[in-house]
């Protein structure tokens, strides 16, 4: 029987990144994936004949450049196509567009507000500085400021120097971003409603919070981080869908000797006298290893794979309280023709970018109100891309695929999720979008609706939370997923965590997988 140095549970992108780094360091690694294919929530599938979809996650924004470099992902097929604009259609028939070209963007913003056109650049500069301030924290295991352990003190000392260098002004700006709501923060900058709403939307993605909930300004920054590597062009749409991100990481891992077994669900982790000994598959097969890394979310890892009996009560309590509350859904449409937006008719460049249904902050907050009380948003926030405009191979010639990220669709829906509720969500999405693109209904050939309950069932993310737990401040940094266990380790010796339920969190970022690999190797990242 083959003896493995490390078993990685879960072939999502973080599990694969972790495996690839471990294999690169010479470890013999086995990845066990429950489903018949790797990728987790980053996967592409031909859902309808001829139409390929990034079924769940659908853009690349935060994938760490060092991972792209270290794992040579372009060599293994990763090609990121730029998404260069965001169109926000408005109920009055007008629109707000944000373009990557500075002059074009300024001209469009000036149409709405000259002041905002000017504030935009300064806002960008401040977020640039803030993202730079936060970025170094992403690459390190988060030190706990209350810990007196030597290596943590050293990390803390470095952070202290770092915050000192940041300067008073920027530290204050950072504090604001960490504590304010996205809407309040944006109010300080802009007056155009659609601009504030569209920007604040990135503060609510994946959370069960509204744009006026405190803490959402940070999520906005979290999403801005991808733009920091603008030169590196790590932001956009992966050719072939997000499955090709996973496929490239998997291929890189395999080229370094990693073994990947699909259709191999792990039933539990074997723990003997506080040490990990291996895993048991659902079929009963036992595989031994002294090191096991779980890519599953904290709830599944601790309460499912390990079991409460092996864990300190305090940790069990923390994990029970760890908030998932999935709030996002996906609607994937196969289209016979392109949508025609009333505000901007024709096949313009806006169809190669994103479209955001976020006309005002009130609109988003109302969408949240519905969800707060357990209902689907009657008029949801949507982030829409048409991948076939960038990669024609995603659909048959002349036809298109449309990916619609939807919020809010609360996991804890009144009466629970049923087929009828799923279709009701699909209808709410299509009806709302049709108000802006009236030809949409007639263009739909097929429709797939993915609810948080589906995400949980298919991908295994608890409560369908796309980030393996909300990106809210009380569960970030040294509190992710639990105090004292934020540095990828667990109370079980030899058992590590590498999912986005750990610092720095979600998005197809891979940082958790990479950091975890270095924790396993006992090296600084």
């Amino acid at each position, binding site marked *: 029987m083959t003896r493995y140095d490390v078993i990685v549970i879960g072939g999502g992108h973080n599990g694969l990144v972790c495996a690839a780094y471990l294999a690169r360091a010479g470890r013999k690694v086995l990845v066990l994936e429950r489903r018949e294919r790797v990728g987790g929530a980053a996967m592409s599938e031909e859902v309808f004949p001829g139409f390929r979809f990034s079924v769940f996650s659908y853009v690349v924004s935060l994938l760490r450049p060092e991972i792209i470099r270290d794992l040579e992902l372009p060599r293994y097929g990763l090609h990121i196509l730029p998404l260069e604009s965001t169109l926000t259609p408005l109920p009055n028939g007008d629109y707000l567009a944000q373009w990557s070209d500075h*002059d*074009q963007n300024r001209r469009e913003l000036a149409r709405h507000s000259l*002041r905002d*056109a*000017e*504030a935009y650049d300064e806002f960008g*500069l401040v977020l*640039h500085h803030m993202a730079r301030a936060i970025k170094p924290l992403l690459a390190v295991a988060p030190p706990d400021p209350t810990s007196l352990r030597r290596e943590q003190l050293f990390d803390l000392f470095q952070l202290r120097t770092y915050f000192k260098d940041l300067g008073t002004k920027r530290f204050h700006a950072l504090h604001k971003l960490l504590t304010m709501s996205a809407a309040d923060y944006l109010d300080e900058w802009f007056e155009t409603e659609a601009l504030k709403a569209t920007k604040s939307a990135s503060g609510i993605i994946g959370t069960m919070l509204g744009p006026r909930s405190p803490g959402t300004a940070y999520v906005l920054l979290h999403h801005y981080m991808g733009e920091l590597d603008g030169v590196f062009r790590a932001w956009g749409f992966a050719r072939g869908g997000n499955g090709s991100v996973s496929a490239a990481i998997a291929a890189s891992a395999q080229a370094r000797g990693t073994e990947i077994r699909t259709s191999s669900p792990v039933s539990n982790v074997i723990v003997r006298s506080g040490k990990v000994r291996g895993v048991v598959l659902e079929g009963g097969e036992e595989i031994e290893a002294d090191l096991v890394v779980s890519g599953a979310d904290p709830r599944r890892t601790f309460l499912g794979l390990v079991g409460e009996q092996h864990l300190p009560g305090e940790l069990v309590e923390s994990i029970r309280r760890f908030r998932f509350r999935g709030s996002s859904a996906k609607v994937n449409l196969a289209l016979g023709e392109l949508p025609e937006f009333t505000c901007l008719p024709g096949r313009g460049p806006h169809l190669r970018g994103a479209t955001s249904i976020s006309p005002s902050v009130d609109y988003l907050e109302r969408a949240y109100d519905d969800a707060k009380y357990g209902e689907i948003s009657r008029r949801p926030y949507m982030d829409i891309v048409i991948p076939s405009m960038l990669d024609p191979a995603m659909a048959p010639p002349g036809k298109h695929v449309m990916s619609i990220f939807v919020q809010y669709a609360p996991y804890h829906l009144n009466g629970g999720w049923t087929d009828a509720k799923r279709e009701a969500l699909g209808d709410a999405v299509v009806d709302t979008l049709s108000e802006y693109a009236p030809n949409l209904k007639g263009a739909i050939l097929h429709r797939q609706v993915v609810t948080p309950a589906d995400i949980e069932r298919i991908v295994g993310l608890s409560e369908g939370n796309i980030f393996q737990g909300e990106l809210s401040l009380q569960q970030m940094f040294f509190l992710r997923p639990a105090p004292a266990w934020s540095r990828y380790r667990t109370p079980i010796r030899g058992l590590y965590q590498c999912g986005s339920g750990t610092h720095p969190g979600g998005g197809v970022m891979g940082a958790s997988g990479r950091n975890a690999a270095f924790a396993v190797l006992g090296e600084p990242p």
Partner: protein
Amino acid sequence: MLKKTPFHERTAALCESHSWRRWAGHVVASSYELSHEREYHCIRAAAALFDISPLYKYSIRGRDAARLLDRVTTRDVSRSQVGQVLYTGWCDGAGKLLDDGTVARLGEDAFLMTAADPNLRWLQDNAVGLEVEVEDISESVGALSLQGPQSRRILEALGELPALKYFRRADTKLRGMPVSVSRTGYTGDLGYEIWVSRDNALPLWDALMQAGRGHGIMPAGMLALDMARIEAGLMLLDVDYVSARKALIESQTSSPYEMDLAWTVDLSKPSFVGKSSLEEEARRGPQWRFVGIEVDWSSLERLYAEVGLATRVPQAAWRMSVPLYASEQAGYATSGGWSPVLKKYIALAHLRAEWAAPGTALEMEITVEHRRLRAAARVVKKPFFDPERKRA
């Protein structure tokens, strides 16, 4: 889509080179003919007509208009006379330049400000508590610059041209069209800038081109202008300095003192944005200076001769960072080129104060046949070209 200036219909028809560039979100001609050379010589020997409409223009009116401008710029605006035009920079709180432009006093309580970058939000934010109206009139006002020794005679042929001294302005009519004319320019030559409402833009262009025919007028593009403004020692935002508004790190910023604009900083004003930092800097002296550089011809000739080539010099002005060395790196040049009127290779440069005295011997990096070498150069006084007619 980029914006088109009010003169685009005419300039597009004349732009044989199809060579366009961006300026503040607009398309403007780099050169009209295939080479910019004739256009350049018109600036110095006849008259060149530039479309400078992309400049940002702000109307500043109200009882506190002068107070606002005194608060934000480094010049003493209150003491300026009606009809006077001031060149000025303006700074952030740390005394670092945000932008530079002109402030023209149209009346006791009315000013026209020009700028290279958008400044509306910044002006409005500084106007808090003041009785003043700031309006962005960039789109509604077209602007032409007529530069060169023949420029005065061309304007005189079109109407009653008031006798304007250097950096003075007046409202007048040219061929019956109401315009404002200022004795200003960006070439260091005799010249005028003419401000006109958007509707009168094309007739004004036509009138100038027609009146200028006997005086050798040519429409001229940005390539010609760039060389002329270097000869005149005039700095350009985003080329020679970075706005403190856009700088990513502190070392990218520059103060007026560091840009050789001490003459524009009036520390006797009771207060203005950046004053305390500038006072401090004036006391200890700026660490950097913005100077003129002349590259030594014989040194260039030698470097080219070593590889068997005749000496080459850049025919069009360049805009990039070029290292300058003394015993160590002393600074960097930001724009330069071959001056046809001076027959010299000149550049504008940032130098550490200790190397900035006129006459200081330096070396400038040049690339000869793919090899980076150093040519002898020295610090010289700006402007490189300063004809008497400029102030006439």
